[in-house]
C-alpha cells in the first residue's frame, strides 16, 4: 500500500523550515574549534616544525602523530596514517591538529606553523614510467590488480579480420555535497561521543576502535543530518573522526572540526581518474568476437577504497553485451595526490564511459547505426556477463532500448540534425545513446562479509521503530525504509519511525553505499517486520497495534524486537580468486539518450534534451526515484562537460565553487525519466538499487552525441570547450 506511492519525505519539513540541526549548528558549551595543519608539498620528509613565537601556543591543544595510539586509518589496508610523522605522501596531507576556544585565534594560528621539508620525487600520473625512488607501495606502486578471463580471446584475436582499438580517459570529480565535512567529539557517560556528517557510522566506529586501541563500547558514533554524500562521506569521515577524537582526548574538552569549502575541495577524496584501453575483435555484422580491456585507476597516495572501486570498475567494463571471449586486466596505482575515494558509481561510470564510447567507435568503423550495433550484441536472457554470470531475469533489454529510442525520437532527430548541420553557419546538433547496467549491492561475497543486521522494534504504545545504521544524506532513505516497513505491516507510514543512526542503539546494517540500502537493508527490514507479526499472533494492519499493546501487557519490561540477518541467496555463487560468478545479485538496466548542440564559435556544448529510461525492479517512491535519476544525470552532465579538476602538485587547485564548474539549472535540458518495472527476487517488493545507475550513462551518451554532431571521435572527459577546440584544430582542419 505504501509502496509505489509518493508519501511525503519523512525528513522534509525539518529540512525545509531549518529546524534540522547539522553538525555545525550544534551548540556545546566550552567547545574548542579545530583546524588541520597540512603539507604544502607533494612528497618529502619532515625535517623540522616551527611555531611562530608571536603566538601563545600554551593556549592551544596541539595533536601530532604521537597522540594517536595506532596512527592509522582503518579501511581495507592500514597504510594511511592519521597524521604524517616523517614522510609526506601528498599535498594537503594532515600533519598537526590544533584546537582553541576562539575560531579567530585558530585562523591566525593555522598560518603560523611552518615546516622544513626535504622533497622526494613524486608520481603525478599513474601511467608514468617509474624509477626506484618513486616506489612507495609494494615493489611496483600497484595497490590492486584484477584479471577476468572468459573463453579464449587470444585465439580469436590471432585470427580476427577486424580489430578495433581505442583509449579512453576520464577525469576526477569533486562531490560538491552542500554540507562540507564536519565532525565533533565530546565525553559523555564514560564514552567518547563522535557525531557528524557521514554515510557509514560503523566504518567510523571501526576506525576509532583501531586508532585508539579501545573496545567498541568506548565510543558512540552518531550521524547528524547529512547534507549530501555521493560517496564523499563513505571513507573520509573516518579520518575526521580520528582527528577530532584525538583533540577531544588530549584537551579533555568537546571539540569541533568543520572544513570550509576550499579545504574540503583541496583535501578530501575525488572520483578516480581513469585510462581504459579497448581492443575488440568484431565480425562484419558487428558481433563482438573478443574483447581485451585494460583499466588503470589513479588511486592517489594511499590504498583507501581503491581495490573495491577497481573491482566494480572492471566488472562493468565489458558493458551489457554478450561476448564469449574476454580478458580484462585492471590496476589501481599510486600517485602522490590526496587519496581518491568513493564516488557514486564507484568505478563503473569510468569503465562504462570507455565501453559505451568504444561501441560508437566500432559502429562508425563498420558503418552501422550505434543503436543497431548495440541491438545485435545486447545481453539476452540466457547469455552471460564478463564474469560468466548467467542473466535470466526476464528483462527485455532490447525492447527497453527500442522504447527509449522511440521516446527520444531518435530516428527523426538524427535526420533533422543532419539537415540542420548542413545549413547552419556555426551550430551543430547530434543525438547519442548509451546502454548500460549497474550491479546492486556489494560486489561478490561483499554482502556475506558485511553480515548486515536490521532490527524492527514494536514499542508498548504501538509505535514501530526501524533500527538500522543506514543514513539519509538527502537521497530519501528514511522515507523509503519507512514505506517498506509500513507496507510489510500493512500500516500507515505514520506508525513507523526510523531511529537516528547511533551505534549505541542501532545494529550494524552495513554502510549506506553501493546502491544497497533499499535492496539489501529494505529486504532485511521486511524480514524483521515479519518476526513482529509472527510473535504477536500473525495479524497485520490496525489490529497489529492492539496485538502489540497486548503483547507488552503480557510481557512487561521486555523489548519486542524483530531481528533479521543477511543470508546469501543460494543462487549467488562467486569466486573471488578467479573473478567468476555472480558479481551482483542483480543489475539495473538502462538506455539513456542525449541531444546536444555544439557552438563552433566557442566550442561549448549544450545538452538540449535527455531521456533516461531504466529497469530497476520496483519503484518504491516515484518522486524520490525520479529525483535520484535526475540528480545523477545532472551530476554526470557536469562530469562529462565542465567539472575539470585542475591540479597543482597533485592536489586540486581550482577548489572554489567559482572555478570548479558544476551545472546550474540554466545549463540543464529537460530530463525525461522513464521506469520499467519487474519483480526482482532480491529486494523489498521486487526493488533493486538505483542510486548509482544514473551516473553511468550520461557521459558516454553526451560524448556520442557530440561526436555525431561534429563527425569526429572524442576519447576524453571532461570535454571542456578548451579541449574540444584543441581536438578540432588538430583533427578537423579546414572543416571548422
Amino acid at each position: 500500500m505504501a509502496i509505489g506511492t509518493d508519501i511525503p519525505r519523512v525528513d522534509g519539513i525539518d529540512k525545509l523550515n531549518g529546524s534540522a540541526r547539522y553538525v555545525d549548528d550544534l551548540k556545546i558549551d566550552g567547545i574548542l574549534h579545530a583546524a588541520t595543519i597540512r603539507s604544502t608539498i607533494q612528497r618529502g620528509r619532515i625535517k623540522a616544525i616551527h611555531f611562530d613565537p608571536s603566538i601563545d601556543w600554551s593556549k592551544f591543544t596541539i595533536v601530532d602523530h604521537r597522540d594517536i595510539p595506532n596512527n592509522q586509518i582503518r579501511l581495507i589496508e592500514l597504510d594511511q596514517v592519521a597524521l604524517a610523522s616523517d614522510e609526506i605522501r601528498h599535498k594537503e596531507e594532515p600533519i598537526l591538529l590544533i584546537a582553541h576556544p576562539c575560531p579567530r585565534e585558530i585562523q591566525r594560528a593555522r598560518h603560523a606553523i611552518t615546516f622544513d621539508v626535504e622533497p622526494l620525487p613524486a608520481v603525478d600520473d599513474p601511467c608514468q614510467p617509474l624509477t626506484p625512488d618513486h616506489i612507495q607501495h609494494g615493489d611496483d606502486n600497484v595497490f590492486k590488480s584484477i584479471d577476468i578471463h572468459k573463453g579464449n580471446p587470444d585465439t580469436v584475436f590471432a585470427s580476427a579480420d577486424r580489430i578495433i582499438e581505442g583509449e579512453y580517459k576520464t577525469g576526477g570529480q569533486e562531490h560538491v555535497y552542500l554540507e562540507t565535512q564536519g565532525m565533533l567529539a565530546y565525553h559523555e557517560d564514560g564514552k567518547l561521543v563522535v557525531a557528524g556528517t557521514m554515510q557509514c557510522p560503523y566504518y567510523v566506529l571501526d576506525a576509532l576502535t583501531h586508532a585508539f586501541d579501545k573496545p567498541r563500547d568506548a565510543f558512540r558514533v552518531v550521524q547528524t543530518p547529512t547534507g549530501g554524500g555521493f560517496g564523499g562521506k563513505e571513507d573520509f569521515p573516518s579520518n575526521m573522526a580520528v582527528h577530532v577524537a584525538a583533540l577531544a582526548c588530549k584537551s579533555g574538552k568537546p571539540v569541533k572540526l568543520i572544513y570550509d569549502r576550499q579545504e574540503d575541495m583541496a583535501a578530501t577524496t575525488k572520483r578516480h581518474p581513469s585510462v581504459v584501453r579497448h581492443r575488440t575483435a568484431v565480425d562484419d555484422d558487428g558481433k563482438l568476437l573478443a574483447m581485451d580491456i585494460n583499466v588503470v585507476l589513479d588511486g592517489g597516495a594511499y590504498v583507501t577504497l581503491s581495490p573495491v572501486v577497481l573491482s566494480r570498475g572492471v566488472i562493468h567494463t565489458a558493458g551489457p553485451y554478450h561476448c564469449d571471449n574476454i580478458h580484462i586486466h585492471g590496476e589501481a596505482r599510486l600517485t602522490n595526490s590526496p587519496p581518491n575515494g568513493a564516488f557514486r558509481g564507484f568505478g563503473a561510470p569510468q569503465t562504462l564511459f570507455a565501453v559505451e564510447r568504444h561501441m560508437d567507435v566500432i559502429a562508425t568503423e563498420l558503418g552501422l547505426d550505434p543503436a543497431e550495433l548495440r541491438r545485435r550484441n545486447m545481453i539476452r536472457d540466457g547469455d552471460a556477463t564478463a564474469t560468466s554470470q548467467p542473466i535470466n531475469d526476464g528483462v527485455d533489454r532490447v525492447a527497453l532500448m527500442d522504447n527509449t529510442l522511440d521516446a527520444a525520437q531518435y530516428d527523426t532527430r538524427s535526420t533533422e540534425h543532419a539537415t540542420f548541420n548542413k545549413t547552419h553557419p556555426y551550430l551543430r546538433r547530434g543525438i547519442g545513446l548509451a546502454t548500460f547496467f549497474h550491479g546492486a549491492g556489494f560486489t561478490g561475497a561483499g554482502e556475506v562479509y558485511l553480515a548486515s543486521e536490521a532490527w524492527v522494534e514494536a514499542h508498548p504504545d504501538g509505535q514501530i521503530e526501524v533500527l538500522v545504521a543506514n543514513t539519509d544524506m538527502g537521497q530519501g532513505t528514511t522515507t523509503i525504509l519507512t514505506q517498506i516497513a509500513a507496507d510489510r505491516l500493512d500500516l500507515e507510514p505514520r506508525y513507523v519511525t526510523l531511529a537516528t543512526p547511533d551505534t549505541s542503539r542501532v545494529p550494524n546494517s552495513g554502510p549506506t553505499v553501493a546502491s544497497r540500502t533499499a535492496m539489501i537493508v529494505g529486504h532485511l527490514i521486511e524480514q524483521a517486520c515479519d518476526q513482529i507479526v509472527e510473535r504477536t499472533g500473525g495479524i497485520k494492519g490496525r489490529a497489529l497495534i492492539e496485538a502489540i499493546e497486548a503483547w507488552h501487557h503480557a510481557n512487561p519490561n521486555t523489548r519486542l524486537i524483530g531481528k533479521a540477518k543477511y543470508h546469501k541467496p543460494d543462487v549467488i555463487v562467486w569466486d573471488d580468486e578467479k573473478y567468476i560468478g555472480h558479481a551482483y545479485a542483480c543489475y539495473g538496466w538502462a538506455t539513456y539518450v542525449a541531444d546536444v548542440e555544439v557552438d563552433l564559435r566557442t566550442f561549448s556544448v549544450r545538452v538540449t534534451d535527455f531521456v533516461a529510461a531504466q529497469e530497476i525492479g520496483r519503484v518504491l517512491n516515484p518522486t524520490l526515484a525520479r529525483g535520484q535519476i535526475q540528480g545523477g544525470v545532472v551530476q554526470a552532465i557536469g562530469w562529462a562537460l565542465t567539472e575539470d579538476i585542475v591540479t597543482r602538485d597533485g592536489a586540486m587547485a581550482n577548489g572554489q565553487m567559482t572555478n570548479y564548474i558544476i551545472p546550474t539549472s540554466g545549463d540543464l535540458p529537460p530530463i525525461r525519466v522513464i521506469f520499467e518495472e519487474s519483480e526482482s527476487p532480491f529486494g523489498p517488493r521486487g526493488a533493486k538499487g538505483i542510486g548509482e545507475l544514473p551516473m553511468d550513462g550520461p557521459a558516454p551518451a553526451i560524448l556520442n552525441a557530440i561526436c555525431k554532431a561534429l563527425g569526429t571521435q572524442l576519447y576524453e572527459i571532461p570535454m571542456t570547450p578548451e579541449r574540444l577546440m584543441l581536438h578540432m584544430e588538430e583533427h578537423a582542419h579546414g572543416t571548422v
Partner: protein
Amino acid sequence: MKVLRPTSRNEALDMLADDPSIRPIAGGTDLMVSWHHHDKTGWTLMDLSRVDDLNTMSMDDHALQLGALTSYWDVIASKDVTNAFPLLTVAARQVGAIQIQTRGTWAGNIANGSPAADGVPVMMAYNAIVHLQSRTESTDVPLDQYFTGYKQSVRKPDQLIVGITMPRTSHDHEWFHKVGARSAQAITKVGVAMVKNGSGWRVVANSVAPFVCRCKRLESALNDGQSFATPADVADILKHDIAPIDDIRSTARYRQTVLARLIHAHINE
C-alpha cells in the same frame, strides 16, 4: 574592523579625505567574495547605501546618468533605459544571477577593476564617462582611459566614483556576447561588445588583457571597410589589441581563438 555610515555625499567625501585607506562598500558583491581570505583587523569600511543622492538614475534626450549606487536590476527594470541602451540590459542579465544583479552596482564593477567585469565592456562601447569626486575636486574620465593596469586605475584613494554618463546616440549596430563556463554564476572567459554609430565602430573585449580594453586596430579595420573571410583574418588584427593569459579558468589560446571566431561569425551574419 570599523564601519562608517555617511548619509550625504559630502560627508562621505570628507571621511575619505581624512582617511584614504577607507574602503567604500556599495553592493558588497565583490568585497564579500574574498572576505574570509582577509584578516580584516584595521579595516575601515564606508557603507554608501545611505547616501541617497548617489542612488539615482536618470535619462534625458542627451544622456543616461547612472549614480554610484545604480544596480544592474535598476537598469533591467527600466524599459526606457533598456530601449535606449539595450546592451546594458543584455550584459546585466548575465552578471552572476538575480541575487547579484539586484545588489551589484555598475560603479562597483568599474571600481573593482577586474579584467573579467561584464558591465564595463558595454559601458565602454557606449562611450561612458566616469565622474570622480574628492572633497576638493571633480574630474571626468572617459571609461576607456580609466584603467591603467591590472586592477589599476586613475582613481585616487580619496576619490569616489559618483556617477557614470553615457551619451545618447543612435546605433546602427549593437551586440554583446559573454562566454562563461556555464549559463549563470560564471566568470567571463572571453567577452565582447560591439557598437556602431555615426562616428564608427567601438569594439570592447573583456578577459583578454590586464583590463577591459578597446580593440582599436580592429575598430579601424572595420571603419576602413575591411572584410574578413576567416576567423584567422580577425585574429591577425586582434593580436595587436589583446594580450590574453592562461589561468585556472581557461587558456590564452582559447580566449584569442574564440574572440576571433565570435567576431568573425557576427560580422558575417
